């Protein structure tokens, strides 16, 4: 009971495939909190008019096509990585957040996360 190409990529499919499974809401829709955050940021930026929905869908489709050209087949589990890459590309194109600013901020968060003892919230240093 799977969608069968390729076989190894199918494990997520059959969770919801059987009509006899408990109805709906079967299986996780977000696999990690960051996926939900990326999703929500996109909706909110659209709501505030930073981009139109067709612009977003177009960017996401481009990113998925690009990723597909040199990545392995996606069973849906890499979907939000592509989503995030598309969001980064779109905010850069809209000159909302530049690529350089973003990678600098990633490094700052990385340093802050490393410096924070386990179990405590990670915070950026005050500037």
């Amino acid at each position, binding site marked *: 009971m799977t969608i069968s190409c390729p076989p*190894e990529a199918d494990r997520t499919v059959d969770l919801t495939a059987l009509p006899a499974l408990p109805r709906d809401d079967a299986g996780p829709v977000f696999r990690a909190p960051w996926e939900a955050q990326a999703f929500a940021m996109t909706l909110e930026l659209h709501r505030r008019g930073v981009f139109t929905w067709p612009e977003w*869908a177009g960017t996401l489709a481009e990113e998925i096509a690009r990723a597909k050209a040199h990545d392995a087949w996606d069973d849906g589990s890499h979907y939000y990585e592509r989503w995030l890459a598309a969001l980064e590309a779109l905010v850069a194109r809209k000159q909302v957040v530049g690529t350089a600013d973003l990678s600098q901020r990633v490094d700052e968060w990385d340093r802050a996360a490393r410096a924070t003892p386990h179990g405590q919230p990670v915070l950026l240093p005050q500037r």
Partner: protein
Amino acid sequence: MSDDHHHPHDHDHGSDSAHDRPLSGPALRVKALESLLAEKGLIDPKTLDEIVDTYEHRVGPRNGARIVARAWTDPAYRQRLLANATEAIAEFGFIESHAEDMVAVENTPQVRNLVVCTLCSCYPWPVLGLPPAWYKSDAYRARAVLDPRGVLKAFGQDIPEDIEVRVWDSTAEMRYLVLPERPAGTEGWNEEQLASIVTRDSMVGVGTVILPAGAGA
């Protein structure tokens, strides 16, 4: 085993270098982007939490199920839904400002409808909540158009040859909701009872609505 396991260095996705980081690559990037956008006043972290909560818990497929149940019990509503789904759904107040139009397609004894988004994963969020992983998979997106009967079979739906299968490819502007067939044995059920048996899969078209075991006995 998938091929990339044999060539771990051929595919550097950027996050590989982050294995030793306390936060994983994408989580770090999301945090960075979120903090920059918040500083610019473009997002409010509290609003983000509300959005996630809404789509994860409050919308789910329940909004869609209520629409289907009403169409089953109210012939005039069914007509409005099939004629102009965007407006008929707006009667419930579910539609958000995604600027997409909704189209309802009806299953009949002669026609089965299947919804896909071949380009990305356009999905009617306001009525079905967040898309399941299989909807976003390359397998589903690629095969739904090429081999819809094969896909339906994978979901346990063996469609006889004399039944037509129609595939609807969603876009950013146009999303589809399948109006499944009302199952036999639900005569006299009210809207709420009916809504409780309408599944997400049936509204995407990969399933049908069936009576839960024991119900209607």
